[in-house]
């Protein structure tokens, strides 16, 4: 399988007062298309920063970062925004839905950046919500949905643009055990049935066990990459 993500000597540091604090140090690796990768590591290991770089919402200090065939480290802001809209589906820990919009409108939101007509947008949004089992909650606002349901709306929002790469930052971190299992099963289904590449940051070993590979980071360096032959059911 070809690589959808390719990092070559990527480094990233942050300023803290006068000091530069390295977060990622000379990372080089690839992620194959269709992979479900779990990023694990202790707090401060740089896993969320790595995810942000791959998703194009942050820029590396040095190195080459090619995602979906585009060297995003060199893209200007406007082009990077367009690229994200086309390529990336986001799933956040706290769902990040627009509270004033219904589930259907939230899912329709990324499609506003396409040329689709309103009718087409709504048809796609309904289909995406149907795929996550929320076809009976179209008009519900986020506050009228449970945490698990909100995360499913967020998954539908990530799916609706047919993004090649889905990035999930602790997608089960705010959910109870049953809801977390549901969401992980859904991600697994997306990966297997729709061949979506998923990169998931998690602290939870049980959640990571659902992935096809686990990458361990520590102090900004790649510690280990572990392939899981048969993810846990």
């Amino acid at each position, binding site marked *: 399988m070809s690589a959808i993500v390719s990092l070559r000597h990527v480094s990233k540091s942050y300023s803290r007062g006068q000091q530069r604090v390295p977060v990622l140090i000379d990372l080089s690796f690839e992620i194959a298309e269709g992979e479900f990768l779990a990023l694990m590591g202790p707090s401060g290991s740089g896993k969320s920063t790595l995810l942000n770089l791959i998703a194009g*919402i942050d820029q590396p200090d040095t190195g080459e970062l090619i995602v979906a065939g585009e060297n995003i480290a060199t893209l200007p802001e406007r082009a990077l925004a*367009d690229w994200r*809209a086309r390529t990336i589906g986001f799933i956040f820990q706290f769902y*990040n839905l*627009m509270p004033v*919009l219904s589930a259907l409108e939230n899912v329709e939101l990324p499609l506003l950046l396409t040329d689709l007509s309103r009718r087409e947008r709504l048809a796609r949004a309904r289909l995406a919500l149907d795929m996550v089992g929320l076809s009976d909650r179209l008009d519900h606002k986020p506050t009228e949905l449970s945490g698990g349901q909100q995360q499913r709306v967020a998954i539908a929002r990530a799916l609706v643009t047919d993004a090649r790469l889905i990035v999930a930052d602790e997608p089960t971190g705010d959910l109870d055990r049953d809801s977390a299992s549901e969401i992980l099963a859904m991600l697994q289904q997306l990966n297997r049935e729709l061949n979506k590449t998923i990169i998931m940051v998690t602290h939870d070993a049980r959640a990571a066990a659902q992935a096809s590979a686990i990458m361990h980071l520590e102090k900004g360096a790649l510690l280990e990459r572990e392939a899981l032959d048969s993810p846990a059911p």
Partner: protein
Amino acid sequence: MVLLRLILKNTLRHRLRTALTVAGLFVAVLAFGLLQTVVGAWYAGAENASSARLVTRNAISLVFPLPLTYRPKLAAIDGVRATTHANWFGGIYKEAKNFFPQFAVDTETYFKLYPEYLLSEDALRSFQRDRRGAVVGRKLAERYGFKVGDTVTLKGTIFPGNWEFIVRGIYDGRDAKTDTNQFFLHWNYVNEVMKKTIPRRANSVGVYVLEIDDPSRAAQISLEADRLFKNSQAETLTETEQAFQLGFVSMTEAIVMAIRAVSYLVILIILAVMANTLSMTARERTREYATLKALGFAPGFIVALIMGESLTLALIGGGLGMAALLPIAQAFGTAMGSLFPVFYVSSSTLFAQLVCALAVGVIAAIAPAVSAARVNIVNGLRHVA
């Protein structure tokens, strides 16, 4: 359409906050409009003055009269089409608080020079025939219930005694700007009484009004008029009617300036309040804006969201303020009585209200919109409202 829907939903998100902000804007825009109307009323006399009329008065002060003998000399000046004269009467109707302007006028000529006072031919003739006759403005008649045939007694302050007048006509204004709060009586009647009681004050005139052919020659004719009486016992000062009226306004210029300043201050205060509200709102929604940017929305979309919300608030509050101005101004004008003889809301005041509301909407949104548009996505996603 989606942008508009999102703007509207965001506007109604915190209903109490929205209601209070709209209420603030409503009060500010209304107060601005009312204060501007008051300023306008102050200048109404000058604004409505005819450019074809000059006023000649005593050069020392308006308090000092001019001899009646000046009139033919003024009438003979090249470019002067007609002349008339008038005296400030200054009587009290029942109580001193019932103030309204009273002028003793030359009944044969006065109304010819003031075509904006609409008086029927019959009423004018009836007024001219009766030396004790009077003509009152429509607003004044409505205020005190004067009807044709009524006797009105004024207690003279400048011209001593109790003076009885019979209302012979009620004049209307040509438009809303015309002062219909005045009371006109016969100069001849006052003069005859003066001849008998205080002869030294007879045959004297407060002001002459000159109608000129060409308003562009106003300065030249004024100079010529004043030259005629140079080094006489009663030197004159001739000026355009507008300059004459502005002379009165200048006596209270500080008050007018204060009112004007307060009207703009009210707008500045609501601008600060609105900017604060929007900043607070934008800060609370930092994570939403970061999410929108992460999804691929351009900073311009976020600017449009905040600007749209701000303009919606401003237009609702401003619109309500504009709608309320007409009835409130009418009630205010009535309550003020003769203090503001001409009190009406001009289209320019309504336009200024709209401009102020829009300006508040735009300016208040600039800082929060720019700040939200520049939000760093990573930091914004971590933001806790």
